[in-house]
């Protein structure tokens, strides 16, 4: 083991704040992405119905990919020196992005020894990072890939007010979590409202045991983070001593500095409104509410705050704060131009975010709201990329973006359609008709899933 000669501080991977004591030592970029795209060849998907993720639908169109990037999207593209894949009858969308997954931290099989998603020992565990729990051999990654998923955010659970950092991954199963980290994606901070924190800690006879206790917990933490941030900034300007390094406060200060995005588990409309007040008090942005079963009651507030609502199609009734869930939630939000995201929070749901969206399309039609496929597809592509802070590089089929592309054998909102091919950075990562292409996790060796991929 090599001794490190330098002290390095990170706020986000790749952002080095400290300095080495010796100029000739190369800084090991600890925890940084070691993702490498697989080898790809220039490829044109030809003659498909293309949903670009920008709200556009182009029939009988081609998608060209080169050097891991989208080269062009349009009709009758030049195919010289390109591998041509006949996609007639197929639908092509941006790769599916799930903003709320616990794959790897609550993997299959769900044995106690694998239960690594909730550090439920303190209501504020902003110091933990989900990536340090991710087990890359979770067979769920492969099943998600068969569902067209190319990127996903792995979050800590919701037991705590501050659950810790989430991490965005490329869904290319690797040996280590670093192999899968989405290059340069910002970190997320998982926060949780409502029943979970107050139940977990209230049952241990400690704070919080009420919703007002939850709020006091957030505010106290932000006060400490503000102080830490001020002292750190002052020290950088030569005023006073830098405070001792504190993992918890480092993450919270990262939110106040805008480098870390808040992903806030919150069900009830009135609670989301209170969370906006806290964000106002401390000057941070809530990037996305997750679950938001009552988001439809405050579509206007979400729009005003430019906060995404990452939701299920139809989960309701499993707990009191989910009592008012309705299937039209996403439809009402989308109609109000809220950044609407279909998320999974489930190793089953992540395999079919397209079908979850289809449920909303049906429910909306019942009340006369027409949601065409080119609009709904944004819920698990472009809008999800926005919520993860990676929309400049992925989430739509636009020239120059990562060639993360899912090819479906029909309208993705049909229950009968399946992902046929999945490209990640232009490389074929999954092919339903050629199992030799497909990854198999170590855990799945020797099982029925072995030969059948994610059968």
């Amino acid at each position, binding site marked *: 083991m090599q001794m490190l000669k330098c002290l390095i501080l990170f706020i986000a991977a790749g952002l080095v704040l400290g300095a080495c004591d010796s100029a000739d030592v190369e800084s090991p970029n600890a925890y940084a992405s070691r993702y490498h795209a697989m080898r790809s060849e220039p490829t044109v998907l030809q003659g498909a119905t293309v949903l670009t993720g920008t709200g556009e639908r182009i029939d009988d169109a081609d998608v060209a990919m080169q050097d891991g990037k989208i080269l062009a999207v349009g009709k009758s593209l030049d195919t010289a020196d390109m591998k041509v894949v006949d996609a007639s009858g197929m639908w092509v969308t941006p790769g599916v992005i799930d903003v709320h997954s616990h794959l790897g931290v609550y993997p299959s099989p769900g044995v106690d020894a694998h239960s690594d998603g909730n550090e439920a020992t303190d209501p504020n565990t902003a110091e933990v990072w989900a990536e340090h729990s991710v087990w890359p051999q979770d067979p769920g990654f492969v099943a998600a890939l068969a569902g067209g998923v190319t990127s996903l955010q792995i979050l800590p659970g919701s037991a705590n007010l501050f659950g810790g950092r989430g991490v965005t991954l490329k869904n290319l199963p690797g040996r280590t979590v670093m192999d899968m980290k989405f290059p340069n994606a910002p970190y997320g901070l998982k926060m949780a409202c409502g029943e979970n924190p107050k139940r977990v800690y209230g049952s241990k006879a400690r704070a919080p045991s009420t919703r007002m206790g939850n709020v006091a917990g957030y505010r106290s933490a932000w006060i400490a983070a503000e102080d830490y941030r001020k002292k750190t900034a002052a020290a950088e300007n030569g005023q006073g001593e830098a405070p001792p390094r504190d993992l918890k406060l480092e993450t919270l200060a990262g939110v106040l500095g805008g480098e870390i995005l808040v992903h806030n588990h919150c069900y009830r409309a009135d609670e989301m409104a209170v969370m906006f007040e806290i964000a106002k008090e401390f000057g941070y942005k809530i990037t996305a509410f997750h679950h938001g079963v009552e988001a439809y009651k405050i579509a206007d507030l979400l729009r005003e705050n430019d906060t995404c609502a990452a939701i299920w199609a139809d989960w309701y009734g499993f*707990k009191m704060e989910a009592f008012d869930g309705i299937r039209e939630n996403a439809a009402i939000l989308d109609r109000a131009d809220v950044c609407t995201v279909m998320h999974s929070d489930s190793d089953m749901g992540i395999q079919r975010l397209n079908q979850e969206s289809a449920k909303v399309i049906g429910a909306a*039609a019942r009340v006369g709201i027409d949601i065409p496929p080119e609009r709904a597809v944004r819920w698990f592509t472009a809008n999800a990329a926005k919520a993860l802070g990676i929309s400049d590089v992925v989430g739509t089929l636009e020239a120059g973006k990562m060639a993360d592309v899912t090819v479906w054998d029909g309208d993705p909102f049909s229950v009968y359609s399946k992902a046929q091919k999945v490209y990640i950075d232009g490389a074929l990562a999954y092919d339903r008709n050629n199992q030799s292409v497909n990854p198999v996790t170590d855990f799945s060796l020797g099982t029925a899933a072995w030969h059948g991929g994610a059968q």
Partner: protein
Amino acid sequence: MKLPSQFYGALLVAFATSASAQTTAITGATVHTVGPQGTLENATIIIDGGRITAVGSGLPVPANATRIDAGGKIITPGLFSPLGQIGLSEVGAVAGTNDATQRGEQFTAGFDVADAFNPRSIVVAISRIDGITRAGITPRAGRSGSEDGQSHVLSGMGSVVHLGDSPENFVKRGAVVIANFGETGSYVAGGSRAAAVQILRAALDDALDYRQNKSAHDRGAWHDYSISTADLDALQSVLNRDAALLFNVERASDISVVLGIAEEYRIRAIVAGGAEAWMVADHLAAANVPVILDGINNLPGDFDRINARLDSAKLLVDAGVTVAFGAAAQTHNARLLTQSAGIAVANGMTWDQALESITLAPASIYGIDSVVGSIEAGKEADLVVWSADPLELTSYPDQVYIQGIAISMQSRQTLLRDRYLNLDAAKPPAFRN
């Protein structure tokens, strides 16, 4: 404790509904009968007294009939949710609204959830407007680490209810007794699935012995049993095949044990869950044991489901096994039955088989396929009129009929929807009623 013996009988209830005097004719529909008549175009369904009296193309409409033009829409039988707690669970995490688990061991097979059924549950209305007209309501085993605490390998009796408006909801009481094998069985039996098998055998042996020696037992002149008299009474209906023994079981080797027990005791067995049932499909078919399949779960959530796969339904049906869906789509999620069926079609099942798996198959598994499950003369008129292909998630019922009555298509969720559909309305939400 003594309970009336008819409490445990497999009781078919006759219906006397307010619709009995009315005749209704639904015309111009594409009818998927799920019966011998197959799919009928431009068909007419005649309903009288809550029952279907005729179905066919070009039927004469009785002069006194109320005529409803289906306008070319699709009609299927009402959907049947075979497992779950509709009417037994209002809010999952609110203990007082949950009646499907009995802590401790006051009862085993004899715990009867039927008296807890609440036809006014919001879950009833939410489920039925999405096409669910019949439901199995089943007790659950207590699980490790939960508030449910310890329970027995046998967790009680399940019943079948209709979700319609007529006051007697029970179609068949005590239709099944639930046995828990696999990891749950291991937990409730003290740490080994082998012990769960032994406990079940002891209970069945006791029930056989009790049947032979009831009078001596009732006089107090007989030896003690492993379970109470109420539980022994409940098991009589299993032994005489009025009720089936429904096993929650996933692993192939455990399913093989189930088949052995079913043969030995000559009982009717049902496999529920059955992640690895496809591996013993031929044996299940030979033993005529049906499977209530999860249908969606393709991951090894635990070691009992290492070989779960999405095309299980096709493999089982091809082998001749009766398959229903519903192990994944339960209670609040019962309305996802169509998604399970649609996914099965995407993975090799035929469309007709898939529709049967959420209508006639569960009715047959519960032994009430002479009453419901298909659109045939003589059966109760549970019908769903669909906007489009019922297995597509973008489709929805336009109207649901239960026992011939057009139900209200309103639920607590439609009320919330309508209240918040337009945020810019003149009045605040609380005043929009």
